């Protein structure tokens, strides 16, 4: 008898009434089936489901990978499909056995779910998770194959060699965790940590630890980063060095600002104040347009995007800090920390309390900028930027727009002492991270 969705569904119903999930049933197939008093006809069906492989050989030259899409936009898969170092066909034909991917798999429905089950049962696989986990309505905000996303994640992670969280959503909920977090988005590390503490998740190889988790934020995940994490891990045979937030240290340790090609203009105090302006054509610094490069850790200026043709700042757009993420909480997601993207101040949500210190923000923003400009003049005066970018001693834009010119902002004392300490946002995130660190012990 060929197993069909129809009779499997009936079987599920029977099992459900007995309080047994199909999965557990499959694990103890045979004897239990008899003891449950299932009809004779169903038993060979179940045996067949186990005997018949839909993934081919369980092991071989390729590392099995399960790529789960949760509350995702598929952007991380799309992004991964653009890579050429190596190209995605080489990855899935010659480097990994991508046994489950909702976007790329040839199979669908029951047979695809079966491929995932067989991979999990065989073990030795990597899990890539794309998208946030949704806990809204007791996890019903996300259902796949009639199962809650929360259950799917726990099941797939319990037997995995390592879990790779692709993109900011999987790391901490991403935009979906943006206030008011309507669907109950949460990052994978937070979720598994909490579930383990509550005794409802156990990592099989773990001795009480979580599976190794590698967080690869950015919206979407940069495919160069994903290849570095998946393929290079296979080539080198060990996980990359991770920082205290379980992000690969080599990628996420420096600010975008540190490596920005427009840094010279920043040092000179040469800013773009309006899109489509002469300043923008000259490629001046986008700091005044709200660029979050100074507070976002990533190496975008170096790896760039889409086969290295460009990146955000080169195209003329200020960085919006889409890699800002904190696996310990959903509260520091990049949207809430960085919006409004084109301003130098940001939204703050404290419950229903509504403050409007906009003027203060402008004033303090002005102070910081004035200091920067002073810094730039100083740099120029001391010759440290000699031979650098074009330098306007008297900036044309400032003279035409005295009300908005940075150099003319009122000098107010106080509030400027944070200038060299990194942003409060980053500091808050790092404090959280050190807390998470002491709990987790990180990964090896």
């Amino acid at each position: 008898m060929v197993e069909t969705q129809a009779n499997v569904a009936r079987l599920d119903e029977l099992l459900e009434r007995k309080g047994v999930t199909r999965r557990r049933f499959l694990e103890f197939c045979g004897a239990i089936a008899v003891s449950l008093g299932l009809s004779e006809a169903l038993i060979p069906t179940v045996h067949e489901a186990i005997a018949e492989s839909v993934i081919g050989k369980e092991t071989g030259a390729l590392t099995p990978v399960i790529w789960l899409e949760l509350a995702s936009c598929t952007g991380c898969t799309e992004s991964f499909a653009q890579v050429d170092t190596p190209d995605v066909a080489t990855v899935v034909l010659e480097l990994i056995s991508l046994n489950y991917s909702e976007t790329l798999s040839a199979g669908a429905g029951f047979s695809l779910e079966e491929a995932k089950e067989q991979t999990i049962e065989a073990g030795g696989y990597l899990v890539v998770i794309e998208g946030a986990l949704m806990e809204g309505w007791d996890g019903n905000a996300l259902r796949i194959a009639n199962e809650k996303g929360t259950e799917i994640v726990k099941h797939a992670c319990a037997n995995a060699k390592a879990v790779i969280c692709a993109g900011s959503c999987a790391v901490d909920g991403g935009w979906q965790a943006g206030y008011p977090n309507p669907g109950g988005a949460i990052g994978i590390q937070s979720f598994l940590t909490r579930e383990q503490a509550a005794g409802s998740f156990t990592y099989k190889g773990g001795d009480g630890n979580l599976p190794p988790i590698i967080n690869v934020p950015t919206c979407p995940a940069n495919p160069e980063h994903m290849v570095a994490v998946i393929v290079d891990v296979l080539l080198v045979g060990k996980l990359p060095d991770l920082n205290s937030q379980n992000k690969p240290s080599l990628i996420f340790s420096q600010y975008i600002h540190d490596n920005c090609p427009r840094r010279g203009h920043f040092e000179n105090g040469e800013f773009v104040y309006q899109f489509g302006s002469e300043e923008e054509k000259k490629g001046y610094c986008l700091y005044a347009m709200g660029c979050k490069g100074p507070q976002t850790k990533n190496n975008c200026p170096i790896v760039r995007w889409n086969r290295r043709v460009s990146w955000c700042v080169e195209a003329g757009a200020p960085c919006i800090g889409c890699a800002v993420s904190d696996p310990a909480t959903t509260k520091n997601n990049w949207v809430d920390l960085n919006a409004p993207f084109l301003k130098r101040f940001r939204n703050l949500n404290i419950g229903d309390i509504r403050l409007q210190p906009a003027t203060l923000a402008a004033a303090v923003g002005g102070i910081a900028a004035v200091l920067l400009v002073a810094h730039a003049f100083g740099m120029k005066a001391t010759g440290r930027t000699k031979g650098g970018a074009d330098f306007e001693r008297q900036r044309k834009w400032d003279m035409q727009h005295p009300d908005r010119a940075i150099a003319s902002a009122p000098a107010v004392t106080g509030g400027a002492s944070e200038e060299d300490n990194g942003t409060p946002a980053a500091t808050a995130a790092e404090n959280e991270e050190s807390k998470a660190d002491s709990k987790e012990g990180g990964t090896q």
Partner: protein
Amino acid sequence: MTATTPTPRTTPTDPATTVTAVPTTAAVATAASVGNKPNGQSIIDPVNRIEGHLRIDMEVKDGIVDDVWISGGLFRGMELVLEKRRTADAAYISQRICGVCPVSHAHASAIAGDKSYGITIPNGARIIRNLVEGAQFLHSHILWFYNLAALDYVNPLNALSADVAETVKLANSAGTTEADFAGLKARLKAFADNGQLSIFSGNWFDSKELDGSSAYKLPAELDLIATMHYLEALEMQATASEISGIIGGKMPHIMTSIPGGSAFVPTEEKLDDLLFRAIKLRDWVKNTMIPDTLAIVPFYMDEFNYGGNAGNYIAWGVFEAPSFKPEERYLPGGVWSFKEPGYQQVQNWDEELITESTIHSFYDPAIDNGTPIKPRQGITAPLYKDEYMVPNGQHPAQGARYTWDKAPRYDNKVFEAGGLARLLVAYNRKVPEIVEGIDNVLKALGAEGRVELLNSTMGRTGARNIETLYVATKMVDWVNELIEAIKGGNAATFIEPATRTGEGAGMWEAPRGALYHYMKIKDDLIEKYQIIIPSSWNISPRDGDDRHGPMEESLLGCPVEDVAKPIHALRAVHSFDPCVACAVHVSEPATGRKFSVVTNPWGVK
């Protein structure tokens, strides 16, 4: 369990009997005469090779789909996240609704912002937006045809038994491009010898027709050619995304299309980067994608029999013309129907005629009793109850709420959105290249003048490739237009608004169809945001009159040989290129939740 289907299902008159000049299997003709036809429930969950989580639940009677429930399995709540943020932030955040068509969302949002500001973007910005939108269309259509839909028709594992010399001959006679077929065959053999199935795990390549013949009908040589082009297509979709990357900074999720115009400044050094990629794409689509389509389709002529529906089509239109009129866009806006009185002549659209019903969706019945609501007045609130959970082995009950997706309707009628809708509107608006493209393809398939055949799985699938060639050709024109605009000093890219209070709708097209963003802003803060996504139209559940959505209706009548692998149903679903994550979201809430925004000095660093 059987819901009523008030709209009579329209099946195109059987082309298998008239289109005899082309190879076709006898599956259709024999469907009714073969015994052992399955009955019972057939489920595809998850539907693969699409964006998002989609569940297809079908009741099969005597080997034919008799009833169907389509369900979107994810709720995220985009509109709620957008409230009280800045106008421009919406263009950045809302495109995260979909990683396949982020550019379209950015543009619909930016247009809504432009209208709220009361501005018209300058000429340079118009052309730049067209270019990055076109790049995304090419990326999306190429990826969809070769890398997502093709595996319903092409079996790469079968290519192992291809004869390489015959493959070269076939490629030549089909007019499609040659390549290192021997090398690919060796590569596939090494893959097969290893034994791990990778992306072919759980495949449906063993699917059968009702007469027992294989549902995968291509000769091994054509499978090898198509597999080669599967790999080339991966390169080409990446090339298209390079154009998006050059203009937008990165793709997915571009950075430069914002209310007021574009943050991208087309300096001279970028123009050649754009032009030569556009030419490369146009030539590949012309020399590979179109010949492949004409080579593969004849083996699957039976798919012209399935996947049809009422045949009503909406397109808001895409690729802005200098006039900025939706009906004059390069792919024009309009409403058209094969049969519906009043729409057999193409009409301009009217935003006032759009409504949404949530009577079968997971939304709060206390707040929304299912009365269709205009999007600008939307008051729905998400609510999931345990009672909505459908036990395994059962279908949703009569009248039940069974999806997170809503049911949009136009003029209180069911309408399909997407590539086919755009093409039929353009065809009836007499856009010359589209008229020529459709007429030529039908002629090549031996079905000259039979436009009604396009209302089917194969029609929907093939139409996209005609559109791909049109967009690829226009892309080269638009780069040249930009070069001329720069020469003539008419290439400004940004305009500052005088006021930042107002409201407006961005009605545009994603590759998957009609896309609607609406915003109301006060002092540059968003007070209200509403989105209607193309796939919301297509995968919509039943409405208050119990009428199926377009995709549900298209599945009725599909033959099912094996309820575990309903391949014809899967092909019909894929023909819509559904994009589910974006289809499922929420409009203006009435949940009493507040979103407080304060500005503060943090972040000045």
